[in-house]
């Protein structure tokens, strides 16, 4: 395969093809691969998104830029993907809570969140979160959204990938970005869980 140059798209397709063939032949299982990926996940994991969120909490001007054009704002921090998808950040407020999904496959803003967890790719999540978001959050994720808050579900596609800017937790006045970053959870950037409790 070294006889010609491959684009990222071609090589990604080849790896995908290889994986499906090996699984089909029973040489390995998806679970085994997922497990190994999990072990290494933090290499491309959600700590990058957490950095962006912490900065947005600490710096209102950066927050504005992030909401206007997330892809460009992330680049300021050296965070970005090579595939050129547009990232869009949807900000939670006192009256709106946001959740992301990819209804058709598993589009996910991996430059900031890493690789998607398995349940995100699961047809059941993809269908249910669209049908009954509030109930799914409560029953599947044990995450209760007050009735006074509207829940919006955003569908990522290969051209536009959403992720969530959670609200800055109360009781964090005067915290530095380094302290704030510890409060940002992956699930809070997907919209299926809270930020970490303020100690």
């Amino acid at each position: 395969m070294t006889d010609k140059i491959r684009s990222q798209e071609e090589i990604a397709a080849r790896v995908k093809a290889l994986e499906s063939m090996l699984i089909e032949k029973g040489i390995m299982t998806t679970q085994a691969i997922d497990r190994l990926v999990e072990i290494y996940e933090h290499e491309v994991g959600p700590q990058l998104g957490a950095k962006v969120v912490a900065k947005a909490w600490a710096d209102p001007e950066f927050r504005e830029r992030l909401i206007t054009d997330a892809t460009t704002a992330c680049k300021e921090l050296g965070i970005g993907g090579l595939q050129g998808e547009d990232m869009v950040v949807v900000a939670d407020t006192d009256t709106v809570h946001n959740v992301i999904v990819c209804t058709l496959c598993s589009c996910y803003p991996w430059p900031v969140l890493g690789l998607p967890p398995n349940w995100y790719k699961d047809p059941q999540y993809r269908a249910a979160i669209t049908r009954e978001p509030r109930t799914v959050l409560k029953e599947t994720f044990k995450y209760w959204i007050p009735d006074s808050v509207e829940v919006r579900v955003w569908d990522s596609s290969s051209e536009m990938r959403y992720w969530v800017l959670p609200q800055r937790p109360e009781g964090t006045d005067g915290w530095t970005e380094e302290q704030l970053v510890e409060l940002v959870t992956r699930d809070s950037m997907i919209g299926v869980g809270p930020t970490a409790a303020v100690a």
Partner: protein
Amino acid sequence: MAPELERPDATELGNARRRIEQLVSDLPGGDPAERSFDQPWQIRAFAMAVAAYQERQFEWSEFQLSLISSIRDWEASGAREQDDPWSYYQHWVAALESVLSGSGLLSEAALDEQTKQVLALPPNRNHHGPHREPIAVDQAR
């Protein structure tokens, strides 16, 4: 990094990771900095090789030799940075293909064919455009 974060990670995940570190530490590019991932396919390819080895599909030394040979070929080709830039994981994939096809587990022709199919198949016709509005709203009550 805070000192307490530098303590060895004694969790099950940390142990699993250390076992793999040990496995890959004597590979060319075994330096963790060389191994960090910047594309999802790279971490998939990485995991697949380790998984295939754990399923006893080949000896780790075979994979190692194959990786060395792919990198050596690239170096010997005069490696013009523009035409054929360095990509550690392209060699990784090449090495994996080579050991699997060497033992008859994989046909390169079948893989070429399957790759074409993946490339020809957009996830969905409507899926390449942006979806600018929320697809579901659960209103405040």
